[in-house]
């Protein structure tokens, strides 16, 4: 079953898209995503997939085109990075508000200025309130697996919402890793056929889409959108269970690493979690009870489950690869909300790291865990928000 290959994150996701065989893909090139769509276009050109590729003049148009194709009743994908996602911003809300289950891999990249093409979560964090489901992934294997699962989650009749799968630009998109690809036939069967709820191409049932909704009804539509989001958690778990049966790889709402009996812990998204797990091991070897939590489902955010997983720790550092200038990082505020309801809760600090592709080194993780061990001992915090790996 399946095969083991050495490929990049972009190549892995391009293969997932080939196996999914969507009806339409409208995309615009942007580093570091370009290579993914280039590979997918080659599959289309070589007749390996029947998708209709639509070339557009911008990301705003790419998303607009996807919205039209999805409203027509198609299974639709696109992909983008950093400023491309920023240019799509207006249309992201249209896709989710119209409840169109579009799938978009996001290869995380920094936003300008200064101009930078490297791995950074500012792009997807900027879109966190757009009504899209967000899954975050640590490596090429996770990016591939989540890409295979994405449309099943998005298209579920309780959900019908667009979905992003985020992976770190260059660090994952361009690094060659060992990846286990599923058989084409298995993915085809797993993903199944898509039946859209109110397709425009069903000409026997004429309809209007995207109407003007004034103050007398707007809030009702937004409230129902929240309800759909509240169903996502269960759907993610069910789809992940089915995927585990197919692949043997298990996914939850988040991953915990040596967290159960931990006293100090790191919370970190994507590729830096891999490095951090090594650091956790080295601290365990030294007799320090360290652990880690890596969120997978960031929107909707599983507050109760994350709170339960972290409440027993003495001190936790949330590592953000995106900044909110003059405020805490976006992941920190979610973790703070998760532990807020508990009377006994860990002291929580925030570290901003890795902006614009700055390397996250084991020494950075060590620095943070040492500080946490000190905080756990003394209960004293010097600074709640600090930057790591930055020159004075």
């Amino acid at each position, binding site marked *: 079953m399946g095969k083991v290959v050495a490929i990049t994150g972009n190549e892995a996701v391009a293969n997932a898209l080939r196996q999914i065989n969507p009806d339409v893909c409208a995309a615009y090139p942007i580093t570091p995503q370009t290579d993914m769509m280039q590979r997918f276009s080659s599959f289309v050109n070589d007749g390996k997939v029947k998708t209709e590729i639509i070339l557009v003049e911008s990301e705003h148009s790419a998303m607009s085109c996807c919205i039209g194709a999805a409203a027509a009743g198609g299974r639709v994908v696109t992909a983008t990075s950093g400023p491309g996602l920023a240019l799509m911003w207006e249309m992201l809300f249209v896709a989710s508000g119209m409840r169109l289950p579009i799938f978009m891999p996001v290869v995380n990249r920094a936003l300008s200025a200064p101009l930078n093409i490297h791995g950074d979560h500012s792009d997807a964090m900027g879109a966190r309130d757009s009504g899209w489901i967000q899954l975050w992934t640590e490596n090429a294997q996770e990016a591939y697996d989540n890409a295979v699962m994405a449309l099943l989650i998005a298209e579920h009749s309780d959900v019908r919402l667009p979905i992003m799968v985020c992976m770190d630009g260059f660090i994952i998109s361009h690094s060659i890793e060992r990846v286990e690809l599923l058989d084409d036939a298995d993915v085809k069967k797993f993903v199944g056929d898509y039946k859209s709820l109110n397709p425009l191409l069903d000409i026997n049932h004429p309809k209007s889409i995207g109407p003007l909704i004034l103050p007398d009804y707007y809030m009702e*539509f937004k409230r129902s959108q929240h309800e759909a989001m509240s169903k996502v958690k269960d759907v993610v778990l069910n789809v992940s269970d089915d995927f585990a049966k197919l692949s043997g790889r298990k996914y939850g709402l988040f991953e915990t690493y040596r967290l159960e009996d931990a006293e100090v812990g790191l919370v970190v998204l994507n590729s830096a979690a891999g490095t951090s797990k090594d650091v956790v091991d080295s601290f365990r070897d030294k007799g320090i009870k360290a652990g880690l939590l890596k969120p997978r489902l960031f929107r909707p955010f599983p507050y109760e489950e994350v709170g339960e997983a972290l409440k027993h720790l003495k001190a936790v550092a949330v590592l953000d690869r995106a900044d909110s200038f003059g405020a805490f990082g976006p992941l920190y505020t979610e973790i703070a909300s998760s532990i807020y309801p508990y009377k006994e809760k860990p002291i929580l600090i925030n570290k901003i790291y890795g902006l614009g592709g700055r390397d996250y080194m084991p020494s950075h993780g060590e620095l943070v865990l040492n500080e946490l061990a000190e905080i756990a001992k003394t209960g004293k915090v010097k600074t709640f928000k600090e930057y790591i790996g930055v020159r004075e």
Partner: protein
Amino acid sequence: MKLKGWKEVTPGAVITEAGSALKFKTGSWRAFKPVWIEENCIQCLFCWLYCPDMAVKVKDGKRAEFDYDYCKGCGICALECPGKKGNKAIIMEEEGR
């Protein structure tokens, strides 16, 4: 009419009923109202042609009254109206006067 609650609205605000825009009386948006002065009308039907809301009615090939349920008062008809001997057949009057 009882307004629907959030559990009853169609996902994504799709309207599955054809021609339902008729129920939306956009004439309530009007700030200026076009008034037809029949004696200055040369029956050119420019107003009917230009009206973006189909709010100029034509009966038996002749200019009829405005449909104020849908006229938003844009004033295009008044602008385009050639009138007769320099006298407009459509003038705009402020609503509520």
